[in-house]
């Protein structure tokens, strides 16, 4: 098959990147109960920071670490004033913030290249011969996915994760038991945003190009779809959700030849189908694919 291996590799790279991205959201929503509708902002901030720093002469590996940290710091910056708001208001602030970030990328050409975006930056693994580059990229992405998963697993199962879960359940209890709820929420956002930043940086390397259009609010909702599909509060579920989501996205991307439908219509149709599938999922398996049914019953 002509599309065979290289197609599957590029699909798996996207899967890995979005799995990391969604793990960051799952930390915030699934484990802490924070409603973040602007997750994509940190995806973009990580990518732009790394690329801009690299173009200013910072070695790429240092720029990567800096990009992750900057994304985390911006998470803190948004959360510090906004976290005192009620959950739904916080969500609106975050979606606004993500649009501000995108408009900044579009308009501040001196820094971000504006609508044309940025290219010409160093890419890790550039020593790999080009015919193997994609597979090396895949290995890097999957290794970072595994690392993110393992770090999160250790944290979620630790007393730190226990405090986050208590905040998700009822923050009055956390406070009454002596936990500084505000600080933990900030930490959760900081880490979630740093993880989003890492995913964004990987996506920049994959495309070898940055463009403000990659950071539409829709991308945040990709992460939400992935988290809900797999079952919120379940990191394995999130990874499975990302796999299913990108398999679906790529399969439907291929079809124009077979279907009597334009590609813009197809894009809209895909979202309609995903919406319908989610509704069906919520009807028959509201806890998500790997979510815990027992847990869900308790909400009623």
């Amino acid at each position, binding site marked *: 098959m002509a599309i065979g291996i290289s197609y599957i590799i590029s699909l798996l790279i996207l899967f890995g990147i979005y799995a990391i991205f969604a793990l960051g959201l799952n930390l915030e929503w699934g484990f802490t109960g924070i409603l973040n509708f602007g997750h994509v902002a940190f995806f973009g901030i990580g990518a732009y920071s790394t690329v801009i720093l690299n173009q200013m002469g910072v070695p790429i590996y240092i720029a990567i670490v800096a990009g992750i940290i900057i994304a985390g710091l911006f998470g803190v910056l948004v959360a510090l004033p906004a976290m005192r708001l009620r959950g739904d208001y916080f969500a609106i602030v975050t979606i606004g913030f993500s649009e501000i970030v995108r408009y900044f990328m579009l308009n501040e050409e001196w820094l971000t290249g504006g609508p044309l975006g940025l290219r010409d930056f160093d890419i890790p693994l550039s020593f790999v011969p080009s015919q193997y580059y994609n597979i090396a990229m895949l290995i890097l992405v999957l290794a970072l996915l595994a690392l993110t998963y393992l770090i999160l697993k250790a944290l979620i199962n*630790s007393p730190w994760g226990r405090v986050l879960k208590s905040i998700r359940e009822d923050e*009055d209890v956390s406070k009454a038991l002596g936990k500084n709820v505000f600080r933990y929420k900030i930490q959760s956002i900081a880490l979630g945003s740093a993880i989003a930043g890492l995913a964004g940086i990987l996506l920049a390397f994959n495309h070898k190009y940055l463009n403000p259009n990659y950071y539409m609010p829709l991308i945040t909702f990709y992460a939400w779809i992935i988290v809900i599909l797999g079952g919120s509060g379940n990191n394995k579920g999130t990874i499975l959700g990302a796999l299913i989501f990108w398999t679906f996205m790529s399969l439907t991307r291929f079809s124009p030849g077979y279907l009597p439908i334009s590609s813009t219509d197809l894009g809209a149709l895909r979202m309609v189908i995903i919406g319908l599938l989610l509704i069906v999922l919520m009807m028959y398996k509201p806890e998500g694919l790997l979510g815990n049914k027992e847990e869900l019953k308790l909400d009623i």
Partner: protein
Amino acid sequence: MDTILSVKNLKKTFDGITAVDGCTLDVEKGTITGLIGPNGAGKTTLFNIITGFYKPDSGEIVFKNKKIDQLPTYKITHQGLVRTFQITKALNRMKVIENLMLSPKKQTGESLIWPIFNPKKVGKEEEEIRDKAMELLEFFDLMELKDEYAGALSGGQKKLLELARALMTDPDMILLDEVFAGVNPTLSNKLLDYIKELRDDGVTFFLIEHDIPLVMEACQEVYVMSEGKVIAKGEPEEIKNDQKVLDAYLGVVHEG
């Protein structure tokens, strides 16, 4: 005796309703002190203010010789003053054992760094915390439920879980808001014995309770609240025969 908690002239108004209206009281260290009063008297609101869930409009709260009325809740808990909720707040989607293990103060593993960089120390501490939690579960007859989700417990079991969770913080003083309501009499008695035992070890209890015989049996001193004010204070026997108290419960309005 020493006063551990002292409340002076506390006031709190919610758009028009004065829930606590110049409340003044002292709780002696190492006692079980009762707080009774008709529904809506402001008892729960008083607890909410003492534990920092609400800021008072005016007045002063001193705990262990330290002003606490401007502190956030978590810092008040760190001072050794902890409360339970009248309407139980189980952490539903957490296991019973996790509910208890959450409580202890200053856990090393509660930082973002140590679970990753010193899992050994965190693990060892977890063992100790688990052991302590198991003791309490055993006592409260919750051992068999330790791996159940807290949301699956009955109302009475949730009350016990709340009390056990509060005890896990190792407090000097506990505010109990109707913790006996909905607990069966056998367990209620056992609970009371346990509370007395803790009192003998120096823990102070301040408890809101509608079950008057239980208050009589448990408390050395009782405060009676009505319409946001303390209207009587004394030994249970005195209180029982106080005309003002009887009137308050029967809804008689006083002139002037």
